[in-house]
């Protein structure tokens, strides 16, 4: 089991040993390239699996089979859909701001690549282990709103613009409780580093110590990735497809990949910060535990999506400003009190 647990690290060591001096600049460069490729592969694979999973869950909740024609149980459906997207014409509307229109989907796709790069997938398995991991993650993932606004503005379409504006209004509301909900964990661990936060959860995951923060992060996280019931940005009953209305073919596909990548990233952060990341009983290797936890969070997000209707935009803001924000501040207060009392008890006891 230990060998299996260390397998990715042993492979990395083997690749490095090919260069003679395993810490030469060439060995580091090679490993960086491999890490980048692995993250991209992770996003694409996640999107392929998650799209199928989403349709299967949608089918399951609404008592129908879901895609079941192509391959066993319809497993190849997403691949066929992706190929179809590749063959579509790439249309840029005549009135569009062409440069911004073209780079907006690329930005949305680049964000999960940047955020997933700092996640610890196993012990010592962060592609990049940043000391300010949480800050970096939050800063980068907030840029997704900018991408949606760019797409909405540049499309020169009223529905797109309404969707882009909604994205901004929504982001201002949920981003603050989202960040505040993570502060409790930072206060306990005294670090912003994601790998150290995971290591601090060797005895008990933070969901036990920070249940309120966990719930706030789950809710705000769904808003962050613009999924139902907070999918106001692409609400098809109101703004057709929001910022994506004018996009076709591969550019639209990039948005889709980016959305599912962001979903994976938010789920990965939830698993890392609250569910103990790769920590778990030794019956499974660490990275398996990590992906299992990510899978559970994603399943939860999909379950919510296919159960709840869409919330109204002012209700969303009311929820974020009047409920989640006070609760997250309360959580910070309680955490501070708890830490103080814990220290006091330790000092009295010791």
């Amino acid at each position, binding site marked *: 089991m230990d060998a299996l647990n260390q397998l990715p690290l042993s492979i990395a060591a083997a690749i490095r040993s090919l260069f003679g001096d395993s810490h030469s600049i060439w060995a580091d460069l090679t490993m960086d390239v491999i890490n980048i490729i692995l993250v991209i592969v992770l996003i694409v694979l996640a999107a392929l699996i998650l799209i199928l999973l989403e349709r299967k869950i*949608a089918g399951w*909740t*609404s*008592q*129908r089979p879901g895609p079941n024609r192509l391959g066993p149980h319809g497993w190849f459906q997403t691949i066929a859909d992706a190929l179809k997207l590749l063959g579509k014409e790439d249309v840029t509307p005549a009135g569009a701001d062409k440069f911004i229109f073209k780079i907006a989907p690329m930005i949305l796709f680049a964000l999960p690549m940047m955020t997933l790069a700092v996640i610890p997938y196993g012990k010592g398995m962060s592609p990049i282990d940043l000391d300010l991991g949480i800050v970096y993650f939050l800063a980068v993932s907030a840029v997704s709103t900018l991408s949606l606004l760019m797409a909405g503005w540049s499309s020169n379409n*009223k*529905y797109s613009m*309404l969707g882009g504006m909604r994205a901004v209004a929504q982001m201002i509301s949920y981003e603050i409780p989202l960040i505040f909900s993570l502060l409790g964990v930072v206060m306990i661990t005294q670090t912003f580093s994601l790998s150290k936060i995971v290591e601090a959860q060797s005895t008990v995951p933070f969901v036990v110590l920070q249940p309120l923060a966990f719930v706030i992060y789950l809710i705000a996280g769904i808003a962050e990735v613009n999924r*139902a*019931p907070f*999918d106001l940005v692409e*609400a*098809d*009953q*109101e*703004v*057709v497809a929001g910022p994506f209305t004018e996009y076709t073919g591969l550019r639209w596909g990039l948005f889709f990949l980016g959305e599912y990548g962001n979903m994976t990233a938010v789920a990965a952060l939830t698993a890392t910060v609250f569910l103990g990341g790769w920590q778990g009983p030794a019956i499974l290797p660490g990275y398996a535990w990590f992906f299992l936890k990510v899978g559970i969070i994603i399943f939860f997000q999909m379950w919510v999506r*296919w*159960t*709840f*209707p*869409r*919330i*109204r*935009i*002012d*209700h969303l803001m009311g929820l974020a400003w009047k409920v989640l924000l006070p609760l997250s501040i309360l959580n910070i207060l309680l955490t501070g009190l708890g830490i103080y009392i814990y220290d006091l008890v330790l000092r009295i006891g010791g």
Partner: protein
Amino acid sequence: MAVERTEELILNMGPQHPSMHGVFRMVVHFDGEIVTKIEPKVGYLHRGLEKLAESRTYPQFIPYTDRLDYLASPHNNLAYVLTVEKLMGLQIPERAEYLRVIFAELARIASHLVFIASMALDIAGWTAWAYCFRDRERILDLFEMTAGSRLTVNIMRIGGLSGEPPTEFWPALKSFLDDLPEMLEEYFGIFYGNEITQARLKGIGILSKELAENLSITGPVLRASGVNYDVRKAEPYGIYDRFDFNVPVRYGCDSYDRTLLRLDEIIESAKIIRQAMRDIPEGSVMAKVSKVIKPPVGEVYHRVENPKGELGFYIVSDGSPKPARLRIRSGTFINIQMLPIVALGWKMQDLVAIFATLDAVLGEVDK
């Protein structure tokens, strides 16, 4: 120096907008997300049915009525054949009367199921949509057994019905009615009871009693504004006076009560069908009618309670086999008037929900 100014966003919703039912179009003025003005535009599905009727014989027009409110086609058939029968003074056999009630009320349930489904869909409750369509399928199967077609059933004839339901119809109908309470409970769990649904619909789109009466709104939309008016009770047609049923009335005047009222009506319809199943006599389903139907010279108006509102036919006969003039008074066409008044000042999302509560079927609006 350029003068900064703000202007309202004019948005063209429809005829190909995902939230529009059919090809309804409205030009909406928005101040941010707030609706400031609505101009409904109808007519994209206009087929000239009233004019077409003048070149068809009386029985030939029955299939055209299917295309009015195509979610409850037996009702349209019923309204039309009752009008012609009233003009001719025709008595139809008892069994046909009962079967007509059964099919009309089944169509009402099917139509209301589609309403709940599309209502849920317009506030993005995808799963509730699938549940309603799953159960509506069983009603369509019943139609298929009897008439051969599922949506445009074309089951009524002048003087009776097109045919007798097969023997397997009755057990299937009974099992559907037995399962109905459980289905309604499911809709309540997934849709009505949901916190977000209630926040989205309660207190939204107030149609006051006075306004509803002044606009001559009919059907469930009127009854959700606290007016106890149902053609089946106010002016019973067919054999509706023989059944014991209530007219559900709600007093909230908002989107939620308009939505919930359909659920109440499904329960009442099921009650009527059960009574009709119990009392239905044996016999023929078709009266003796001459091959060429020539009603006497005269004019007649007859109305029925369609799931969407009051559906009336006005026919002028000159004694020939074809109507000299036919006019259709359809419920939704009148009900849609409330939209530009009631939805003002609400948000874009509320506008979509308020429009959904009208249960508009454009086949009936545009005729």
